[in-house]
């Protein structure tokens, strides 16, 4: 189903026109907040707004009901303009229970709308979120004056609207989320049709439960009509469609884009691919997505552990299928010895690290970008590899393709860093024309393709410094690869001192030679000035927005975002030299800043906030100003 963008769209009379709005849905982790959030996003996408999402949920599958640590949230910002972030401040909060209210209220703007299910604000539930005895926030004058709190008896109203459905209380209660969604749809003038279609398809056709579909649709409509008739809201809000470049768009999350990027890369390399991994939050759905794509040239393998996964990928590469594995921080740590093996053997290996808050088990469903130094150095010995980082959900598509291209071109390890925020967050994506994506066909030489004489498995290409990818089953070219140090060219085990020094440098040079085929770093804003905000990874949206905001208020600030971390783009040194000060905001304690300082001898300053969530723009701007005014 697609909707044509009408460039002459006019907001209806009587509604308030907004440039953008931020809505956050919150409730228990079993309440279906992710579902309503993604439904709102899909509807909004079809309507034509630019959007960015930020799902925020606990690690547990069903945490104890009513507790603050069981709260699941979904934030979506949508706009008639180009936006890059899900928003710092919430305009409308939906709180299905007191815990959702308690956890999220502080993020709501003064005067913001707060729609609560007042039926859940019982003594027992209030106690579960550790409000003091006898206190009910809905009766707190301070809160009711600061925010526009609209208490709706959603449980009762949902049940009433479904009373004649013949379904049990439990099933009816499960539709409360749709009731809430209906209210929000009315409030923000969204059409109901896309969600109705989804509910009928999902519950009706896919799950074979048309009665469930029916009550959900009814609850949705009831919520909508409640918004219309209850006259509890001062106004409705209209956010016009955004002016995007012409094209065909879809909604995409980072993990979805990673899946599509990998399968596209296999096709462009004209080579099969094996994705071997072990389930780990937040990377598991890359495995799930690829597992359905056997017909597209990718086989998946769920290994018994992280180490088995990466070793199977390495074996697959030796055998001739591009080996890929995916994980998060803890899995990277487990795989590090095997990374060394890939670098030593010189076979292609792509690793996707969907970073999450660490260390150790950390906070599995919260985002962070603290694996950069691990990706650069976390292996025994001098073991350099190519390191890439995606900057947004849709950028995961292009960077996954780049990872495979570079791994096969240079016969080495490529680590692609993404993070939980962009992996789960979604944005609109202009779908590219598949056929115009450049190819990079892989070659498996036969004896006749190689120079005369005995085969030397480590004889290198002059440009890429890569050895030939000769695979088992090829006549006359039998050879052995090993994890011990090897003699240049022949690959025989060698303990020779000079050879070892030479081989170290060759492996390092090979990684650096990748710089010849990567794009230069682009600066967003003036080419030179007082401050360059330099970032990498999922902070692209917030850093770009902060720099734009600072520039708009008269500050000399530009921004740039690195997608190639090793090797760096060859113009990086020159770009850095054009600014008086380099500021590096990171969701870690200073990792890119450590590398930039040491490699370029510039006095880069870090802005380091490690809260398990994306930056708050205003806070970022304030910190930059602090540094500038020192």
């Amino acid at each position, binding site marked *: *189903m*697609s*909707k*044509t*963008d009408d460039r002459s769209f006019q907001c209806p009379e009587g509604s308030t026109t907004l440039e953008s709005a931020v809505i956050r849905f919150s409730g228990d982790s079993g309440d279906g907040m992710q579902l309503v959030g993604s439904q709102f996003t*899909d509807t909004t996408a*079809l309507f034509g707004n630019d959007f960015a999402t930020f799902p925020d949920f606990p690690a547990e599958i069903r945490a104890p009901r009513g507790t603050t640590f069981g709260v699941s949230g979904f934030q979506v910002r949508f706009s008639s303009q180009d936006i890059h972030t899900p928003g710092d401040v919430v305009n409308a909060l939906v709180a299905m229970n007191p815990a959702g209210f308690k956890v999220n209220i502080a993020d709501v703007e003064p005067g913001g709308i707060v729609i609560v299910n007042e039926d859940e604000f019982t003594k027992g539930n209030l106690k579960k979120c550790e409000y003091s005895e006898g206190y009910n926030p809905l009766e707190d004058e301070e809160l009711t004056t600061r925010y526009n709190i609209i208490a709706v008896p959603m449980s009762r109203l949902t049940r009433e609207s479904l009373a004649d459905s013949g379904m049990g209380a439990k099933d009816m209660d499960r539709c409360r989320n749709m009731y809430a969604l209906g209210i929000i749809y009315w409030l923000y003038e969204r059409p109901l049709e896309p969600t109705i279609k989804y509910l009928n398809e999902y519950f009706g056709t896919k799950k074979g439960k048309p009665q469930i579909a029916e009550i959900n649709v009814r609850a949705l409509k009831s919520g909508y009509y409640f918004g219309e008739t209850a006259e509890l809201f001062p106004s409705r809000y209209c956010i016009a469609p955004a002016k*995007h*470049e*012409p*094209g*065909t*768009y*879809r909604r*995409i999350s980072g993990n979805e884009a990673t899946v599509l990027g990998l*399968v*596209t890369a296999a096709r462009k390399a004209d080579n*099969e691919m*094996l994705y071997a991994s072990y389930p780990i939050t937040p990377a598991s759905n890359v495995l799930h997505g690829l597992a359905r794509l*056997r*017909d*597209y*040239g990718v*086989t998946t*393998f769920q*290994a*018994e552990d992280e*180490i*088995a*996964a990466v*070793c*199977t*990928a*390495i*074996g*697959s*590469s*030796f*055998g*001739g*299928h591009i080996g890929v594995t995916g994980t998060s921080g803890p899995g990277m740590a487990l795989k590090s*010895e*095997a990374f060394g*093996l890939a670098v030593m053997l010189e076979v292609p290996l792509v690793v996707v690290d969907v970073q999450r808050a660490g260390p150790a088990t950390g906070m599995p469903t919260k985002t962070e970008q603290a694996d950069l130094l691990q990706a650069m150095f976390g292996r025994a010995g001098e073991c350099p590899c190519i390191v890439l980082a995606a900057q947004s959900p849709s950028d995961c598509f292009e960077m996954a393709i780049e990872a495979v291209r570079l791994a096969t071109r240079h016969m080495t390890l490529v680590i692609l860093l993404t993070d939980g925020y962009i992996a789960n967050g979604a944005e609109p994506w202009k*779908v*590219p024309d*598949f*056929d115009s994506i450049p190819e990079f066909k892989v070659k498996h030489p036969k004896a006749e393709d190689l120079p005369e004489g005995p085969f030397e498995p480590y004889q290198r290409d002059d440009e890429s410094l890569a050895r030939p990818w000769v*695979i*088992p*089953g090829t*006549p006359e*070219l*039998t050879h*052995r*690869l*090993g*994890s011990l140090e090897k003699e240049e060219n022949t690959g*025989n*085990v060698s303990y020779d001192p000079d050879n070892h020094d030479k081989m170290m440098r060759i492996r390092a040079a090979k990684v650096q030679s990748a710089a010849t085929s990567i794009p230069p770093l682009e600066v967003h804003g003036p080419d030179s000035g007082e401050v360059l905000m330099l970032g990498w990874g999922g902070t692209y949206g917030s850093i770009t927005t902060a720099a734009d905001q600072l520039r708009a208020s008269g500050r000399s600030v530009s921004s740039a975002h690195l997608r190639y971390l090793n090797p760096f783009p060859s113009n990086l040194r020159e770009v850095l030299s054009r600014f008086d000060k380099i500021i590096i905001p990171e969701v870690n304690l200073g990792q890119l800043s450590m590398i930039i300082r040491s490699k370029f001898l510039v006095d880069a300053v870090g802005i380091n906030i490690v809260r398990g969530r994306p930056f708050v723009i205003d806070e970022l701007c304030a910190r930059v100003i602090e540094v500038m005014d020192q």
Partner: protein
Amino acid sequence: MTTGKNGTTSLPVYTAKDFTSDQYVRWCPGCGDYAVLSTIRKVLPKLPFKKEDHVFVSGIGCAARFPYYMDTYGIHSLHGRGLPVATGIKLANEDLQVFVVSGDGDLLSIGGNHTLHAMRRNIDMTIILLNNKIYGLTKGQYSPTSELGKVTVSTPRGSVDAPVHPAAIAVGAGCTFIARCIDVDGKMLDAVIQRAVEHKGTAFIEVYQDCNIFNHQAWFYASQKDSRPETTIDLEHGKPLIFGKDRDKGIRFNNGSPEVVTLGDGITEDDLIVHNEHDRCLAFVYSQMNYPDFPEPLGILYSDPNKPSYDSLLSQQAPTGPAKTDADFQKLLLGNETWEVN
């Protein structure tokens, strides 16, 4: 000229020399690995495969140096990780004949988890465990197959943990081909390897291997000509379990447990267990028959030719090859819901 695996009739005639690499063998003189290397170099020419279709994979250890000495494709990988690497190779190309040659530390200590899962999955490959009941390359620590109380450099007062028996692990993991040989008995090893390669699934061969530097004569009871008939029993499918220099002893079931009996005096061959390769419970019983209480069974303890291999199930489910010709990549990128901007 022999008919190759894929029906090709152009298989060359190979000799052991064709499978011998140019690398100087670095095992200690007297090491049991030499005998195994020689046997394997001689058995490969008998197999119906092209030289370039063999891949030898190993982990780390003395045994794991094996691939360097074979002129085939090979990988010397990481300690304990030979099996997942071998799995990846097989998944990339199921026409390859994959061998994993490793030691007791590599396959049962650090690699124990992978051994369990490779066997459970029944990937079509041959695992040769060179069991010398010690850690050789790191100079003499005890291994998971060393006996309780073994005094070594890391256990000067004797080890206090009990060993595992590889065959028992294999039975427990559901391995579909379990065999046991002795390094010096090249004839039996040759025959077993041929059966193992024929077997479509994980074939596991434990080899009693002597480390003459760090654990010399640990297997002497089994390998020496005079003691072997009393301490081991060569299994033959369909034949009763008889052993002894004079073939005067046998194994029978007594109330569900194996019992050593002397023939004569009312006990005849008919009372004895008849070896059945396809009986898993019997395989477990064999894995519990240990020296000195029992003669240790040698040869093919168990084989299940019917259980499908992982790779065959995978390709039955859906082809694991290149993208289907009608795979619509543009449609894949577009997904289920799109909208147009004009």
